[in-house]
């Protein structure tokens, strides 16, 4: 019967540990306190695994099975922490803001250049709008050629769509203001109008 008594003693110790954690839980905010709470949890878990599940009495290789699972999880945590534990709520300052701090004359915006625009279109726009501007039959984006309402919009409206993105009937166009400069977006629009617009 001494086994039973031992189990009850361990149970009592687990309850004590629980109440200690509860007490410490009033002071959370202090990293040392949080650490202590988790050490206590680990000790409690170890008591249950070793004594209630009798892992302490099992063959070494069987103990390694459980330890192996823990080791795999440890590898997982170490691997993801540098990425996932970053405080993503802090958005790094935009590069343009930094450039503003240094007084540099901004290049004036030129009218859209079809040749430059063709290169922009051929790299960034063809994926959805296709080389012929028909967007694979209007399935992957706006079909500039067959749907005349598209290019009938004003330049301002179209440039906003390019910069900010747009969700429409076909799908969602991503915003390009981060990837393309304003000049590039103006050039691309000029190319589109020249190549696919009504002649």
């Amino acid at each position, binding site marked *: 019967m001494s*086994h039973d008594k031992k*189990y009850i003693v361990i149970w009592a110790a687990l309850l004590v540990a629980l109440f200690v954690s509860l007490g410490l839980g009033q002071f959370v905010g202090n990293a040392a306190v949080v650490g202590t709470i*988790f050490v206590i949890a680990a000790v409690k878990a170890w008591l*249950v695994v070793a004594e209630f599940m009798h892992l302490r009495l099992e063959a070494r290789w069987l103990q390694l099975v459980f330890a192996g699972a823990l080791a795999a999880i440890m590898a997982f945590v170490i691997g993801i922490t540098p990425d996932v534990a970053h405080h993503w709520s802090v958005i790094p300052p935009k590069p343009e803001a930094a450039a503003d701090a240094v007084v540099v004359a901004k290049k004036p915006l030129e009218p859209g250049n079809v040749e430059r625009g063709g290169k922009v279109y051929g790299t960034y726009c063809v994926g959805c709008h296709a080389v012929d501007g028909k967007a694979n039959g209007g399935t992957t984006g706006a079909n500039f050629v067959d749907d005349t309402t598209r290019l009938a919009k004003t330049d301002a409206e179209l440039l906003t769509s390019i910069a900010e993105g747009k969700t429409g009937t076909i799908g969602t166009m991503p915003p390009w203001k981060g990837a393309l400069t304003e000049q590039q977006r103006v050039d691309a629009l000029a190319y589109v109008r020249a190549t696919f617009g009504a002649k």
Partner: protein
Amino acid sequence: MSHAHAAPLPEERTSTGVATGKVALWWFLASEVAIFGGLIMSYVVCRLAHPEWAEEAAHTVSAAGALNTVVLLTSSLFAVLAHSAATHGDMKKASNLLFATVGGGLVFLCVKAYEYHHEISEGFTPVASLFWGFYFFMTGLHGVHVVAGMTALTWAALKARKNEAPWAVEYTGMYWHLVDVIWIFLFPLVYLASAS
């Protein structure tokens, strides 16, 4: 009288000296550790990136969490006492203790149901924020395992009453202990690590 005749049941045959059922059970428990470990550690690491979750965690009901911890620890005690009784041949006592363990699980689920109701009625649904998404998924998955454990324990208890499957007393109890261990980690992570 050849020693080479294999016993018909896997439980009776072992190349390592460890019962086959126990080998299988520890591998199964290791895979459960991998599942919950992956989930819980994902939560922990996300939590490090989001200190503001401490305010949200303050809306969990710590008293209920603490009560549930006491309940699970006690039910684990009953489970290990059941195993002890079974090794001494007292299957009736083992059966009763297993039923007590199941009872503990039932209390746990009732407290949890109260908590969920309370939190959802205050607007803290699984989609309210990322913290609550993790909270409901982790405790929900744990709850599913509690139900599965209660089912297995009930089956073992009924078998024990008929003096059958004595190994089930130990094995279902071990599964229950793992469910308890998972909760031992969930409790401080979700209830204690909060601003108040």
